[in-house]
Each structure stands twice: as structure tokens, then as C-alpha cells.
């Protein structure tokens, strides 16, 4: 398995291919529906974002509350399609990687090719396993959104699969075809 780091530089992003299994370490951000809406509204109004999107990786997650002494609760990915409307705007501002589960729209894939962005799948429903990779969890903004607040995570060896690469290859299509052609 390939080891990669976040923030994710453009060169590494472009070298990843759909179907690659990787272990991600470094700082990533959490955001989902309401957080994305706020970031895009802020950009529309010409306001500064609370985070630097350059080469950033965003994890679509709404974890369970952390118990005392723990960094985070169960923390698996949520369905990415709901962020499709916002993702291209964030890529334009430097977003380099997205972590979630499920299909993306054609617009998102086009934007990924244009800006050099990668879509990673974390295993949906593996919240307990993924929580073990999270070593730090710092709220950054939108704390009023509860489970949807924008946080910075430090992750170590987070197991991911490249689902859609920056050339537009899609494992959801090729994986199935490979299986059917067997």
C-alpha cells in the first residue's frame, strides 16, 4: 500500500490511479452539508474562509461524540453526492482531495480533471476502524453545527481507496467491469 501525506501536493495527486489503496497521514479537514454551504456562501460574499484550501483534503464525516479522554467517536464517511453542488467551487480554491463514499456527479469529475483533485473512498460503515486513525481533532469553525462543525484532524495511516483519479478514471465503473469480465 502506498503512503501519502496531507496536505496533498499536486504531483502526488496526479500520480494516483483509481483502484490504488493508500494510507494517508497528516492534517485534513472535516466538513459536510451545512459546512459546505457556509463555505460557499462565504466565498460568494467575498469573505475569507476559516481554512486554507490550498492542497487541502476534506473528509465528509459527521462523527459520533467523543467519550471523555478520546479524540473522536465513530468516524466513517458520509455520502459524497450531497456535496457535489459545492465541491467544484472549493476545487477552484485549491482543494486537492475529497474523502467520502458513493458516486460523484459529472460536474465534479470534470472539475477534478481541471484542477487536479482526487476522490478517495473510505469504507462506509467502518466508523470504529477509521476512528483509530484520528490522533488529533481541533474544532476550527462553525461549532454551532454540532456533528457538522468544521474540524482539523491529524490522521495516521488512514486506509483509503482512490475511487476517481485526476484523469477521471472511476473505480465504481472499472471495478465492476473487471469483475463482470472475469
Amino acid at each position, binding site marked *: 500500500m502506498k503512503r501519502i501525506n496531507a496536505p496533498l501536493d499536486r504531483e502526488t495527486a496526479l500520480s494516483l490511479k483509481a483502484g490504488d489503496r493508500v494510507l494517508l497521514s497528516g492534517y485534513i479537514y472535516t466538513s459536510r452539508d451545512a459546512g459546505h454551504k457556509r463555505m460557499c456562501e462565504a466565498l460568494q460574499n467575498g469573505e475569507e474562509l476559516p481554512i486554507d484550501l490550498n492542497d487541502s483534503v476534506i473528509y465528509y464525516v459527521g462523527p459520533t461524540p467523543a467519550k471523555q479522554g478520546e479524540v473522536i467517536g465513530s468516524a466513517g464517511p458520509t455520502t459524497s453526492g450531497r456535496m457535489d453542488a459545492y465541491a467544484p467551487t472549493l476545487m477552484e480554491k485549491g482543494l486537492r482531495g475529497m474523502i467520502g463514499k458513493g458516486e460523484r456527479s459529472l460536474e465534479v469529475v470534470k472539475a477534478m480533471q481541471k484542477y487536479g483533485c482526487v476522490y478517495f473512498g473510505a469504507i462506509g460503515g467502518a466508523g*470504529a476502524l477509521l476512528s483509530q486513525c484520528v490522533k488529533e481533532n481541533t474544532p476550527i469553525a462553525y461549532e454551532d453545527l454540532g456533528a457538522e462543525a468544521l474540524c482539523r484532524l491529524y490522521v495516521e495511516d488512514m486506509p483509503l481507496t482512490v475511487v476517481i483519479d485526476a484523469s477521471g478514471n472511476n473505480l465504481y465503473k472499472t471495478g*465492476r467491469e473487471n469483475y463482470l469480465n472475469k
Partner: protein
Amino acid sequence: MREIDVKLIKEKIENLCIEANLYLPSDITKALDLCYKNEDGALAKDILGDIIENYTLAESHKIPVCQDTGLACVFLEIGQDVHFVGGDLTDAVNDGVRAGYEKGYLRKSVVCDPVLRGNTGDNTPAMLYTEIVKGDKVKITVAPKGFGSENMSQIKMLKPSDGIDGIKNFVLKVIEEAGPNPCPPMVVGVGIGGTFDKCALLAKKALLRPIDTENQIPFYADLEKELLEKINKTGIGPQGFGGKTTAIGVNIETMPTHIAGMPCAVNISCHVTRHKFEVI
């Protein structure tokens, strides 16, 4: 007449909410273990291996199996000789859910209005289903339902002339459209018959039945097997990355219907199909 204090209902539901979210039922874990053995693609096997490690970790570290700890679906089968005392039954159910989701560090995923939104902050109200049955006991089932899979569910008012093929085609269409979104491997609940609403309820109830059991009518038991085989031939595979294991179970429930209809509902669930019951 047997009197039951609703406080007992509250306590039981509180515990069931927590346990359902930490421990997967054994029919699900057994099926996952078996699929892991049978899967031959490297990536598919890897993914199933991680899924197995996940439920094992959840159990040993007492972390919710999945972060979507769901809407709390609560089913009460109430014996007709039971008389509840000590307060309001619905309040007791919601008190139980509130306490369980707080104490168990479970995620609060309920909004108070479908359009205007706004998190209720305590995962209430529960989705409460009551049924009056014979006897003086109460069966309480808690089934937290995540929405990644719930959102992929569909219902169709088929015509009687669509026949069995109409049903098969519809179920497979729903699976195709769901693809990777409901965190495959899935569990598929199918309801056939009744009215529009009863049919959907049948599909939901089908998800409560262990997947290592079959429909008591041989015709539908065969259909369960056939559909499972067909679903696993789609190649969607674990997480939609391709493979043999797209579903680990198909459960069908049926009931009588109108001469002019053949409703069919498909309630999709995931490898984190949770339910826990207790009889008091």
C-alpha cells in the same frame, strides 16, 4: 390484565439503543465472515477484511459500529392484556431514546422538520411502530436506521399483470440505482402486497428478520435465494469497488392485497444492519 410501568419501557429502550449500535447481530457478522472467505478479488477481500475488523473493534472498544447511529426505529408488539401505568407510553419511548443516545455517545441525527430542518439535539422523536398482539407480554425492538441506505429505498405500485418478473426487475433496478451509495454489502428488505403504506412497512420489517432465516412460504424462500444470487451477479461488490459480495441477505415479507394491485417496496440497508430486541 398485567400492569407494566412505562419506566421499564424507558429503561429497556435506553439499553437497546446503546447495544444495537455497538454490537452487530450474529447473523450479520456470520454472513460477513463467510463472504470474506468466498470473495476472491484482492481489493474486495481487503475491504471485507476491514469491515470485519471494524465490527470487532466496535465490540471490544465500545465504539459505535457506524457513525450514522440512525433514526431510532422502535417497534412495540404489545399484548392486548397489558395495561401501561406510570405515564405516557410515547413519552417513555422518547425518554429512552434520548437517554440512550446521550449515555451511549451516539450521534444525534434528527431534524424537527423535513423542510425547515433544525436538529432536535437528542435524536428524538423515535420512529415508533406499535402493534397489538395476543397475550400479556411486550416485545421491544430497537433498529437504528442509517440514511445512506434508507435514501436508496423505493416503492412501486406494480400491476398484477407485471407478475413475478415485474417484482424481480424492480428489485434489481433499485439495487442498480443504489450502486455504491448504501455502503455495500447491503441487506435488502422487500415488501410485497398490502396497501402503499403497509407495503413499505413490510419491507422495513423484513430487515428485522435475521438473514440466516427464510420466508416460511417456499415460493418466497426460493425468490429470496434467487434475488440474492442475481444481486451478487451485478458485480457492484463491497463498497461498489467490484466483487461477488453486493448483498449478504434478501428478506421478503408479504401480505394480502387488492385484486387490482401488487405493491412492491424495497428497503435498502447496509452491512451495519442493527437491531436488538427484548421481551418483557
